[in-house]
């Protein structure tokens, strides 16, 4: 690896950016945060369903990873490492607060209308036209509601597989589970989602 400071960080692989971070380069740290803030925050947010809490846990994840960057082993994928720490943070939080089944309607700790609004899971990314947006928000809301009802171990598996598009092997590495268990969890999660979505459609 060249020790010269890169002009285009986006062209570098994760491993290369990490090597620059190990040399103490501030820009390399920022690039890692830029690359992973969205997927890490999304995963945690969908696990804990509380925006403020998810921000705190995502911040804690990045601080933990970046402060231990010297101990990163390049034979493993950086994404596996950061998702493992993010997942552990979310699971620990769920265990502490017993939030196994969560509401879509904001944080269970929100006490005022503003707090509920601020912590409600926002569905739709604002790029659709008005009609599409309504339809997508409805479908997205149903799926988010169904995901929220899954057991945490099914939830993180299905999110990593079908929302983040991680391969089974990487999910097994992230969650410290045997490959067969990961496949079983994902299969069961899909079965449950199928049933839950059918129920939600019938209710609608």
């Amino acid at each position, binding site marked *: 690896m060249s020790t010269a400071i890169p002009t285009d960080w986006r062209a570098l692989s994760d491993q290369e950016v990490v090597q620059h971070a190990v040399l*103490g380069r*501030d820009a390399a740290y920022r690039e890692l945060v830029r690359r992973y*803030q969205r997927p890490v925050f999304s995963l945690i947010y969908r696990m804990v369903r509380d925006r403020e809490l998810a921000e705190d846990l995502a911040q804690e994840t990045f601080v933990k990873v*970046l*402060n231990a960057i010297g101990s990163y082993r390049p034979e493993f994928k950086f994404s596996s490492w950061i998702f493992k720490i993010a997942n552990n943070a979310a699971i620990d939080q769920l265990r502490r607060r017993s939030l196994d089944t969560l509401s879509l309607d904001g944080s269970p700790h929100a006490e005022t209308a503003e707090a509920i609004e601020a912590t409600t899971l926002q569905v739709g990314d604002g790029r659709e036209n008005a009609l599409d947006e309504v339809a997508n928000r409805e479908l*997205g809301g149903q799926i988010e509601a169904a995901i929220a009802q899954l057991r945490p171990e099914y939830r993180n598996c299905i999110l990593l597989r079908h929302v983040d598009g991680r391969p089974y092997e990487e999910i097994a590495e992230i969650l410290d589970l045997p490959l067969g268990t990961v496949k079983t969890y994902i299969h069961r999660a*899909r079965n449950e989602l199928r049933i839950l*979505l059918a129920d939600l459609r019938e209710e609608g």
Partner: protein
Amino acid sequence: MTTSAPLHLTTEELDAFLLGTPSLRAVSHCATCPACDRLVQQDALVVRALGALPSFDPGPGFVERVMADVHLARPLAVPAPAPIPARSARAQSARRHLVAAGVLLGTATTAGFAWAAANPADALGFATPALREVGSALWLSLQAIAANTTEQPWFGALRDTLAVPARAVPLVVGAAALYAAALTGFKRLLTGPAIDAGR
């Protein structure tokens, strides 16, 4: 004639459908099994819907908040050699005395050899009676040990036993084994205990 029940799609076959790489068996099975076909369609719908879910961004200033708590790594430097610990004054004094004694002994020995080389007749005049006395004393001691041994009551029986090879060989081998065992035991006695012994 027996007819086997149709084998429905396995988890792997369902996954293969989702990846767009179904096997021929799975495709032909779905063509004749409405339940599996519906399962494949519903699974595909769920997976498509999951894939279409939006990502979320943390609030503004997230990077700065993270960076405020991060300690940048320091570049790895070549470690400086460890300093040699300074000797105490007492150790230095002892070392000086040892060196002086060594030099003195070396000088005396060298001088002795030099004198002997220069005066061989005188040197032999001193050495010969002394060496003769030492040799005589060693020979007398050996004779005394031999006489003492042959006068022991067990000596006759031992000599008769060793005179027959069939009895002598096992006895010698046994004695050697006993000696080896004793040496091993002695070595173990002298070896210090392991650090974690007794834990």
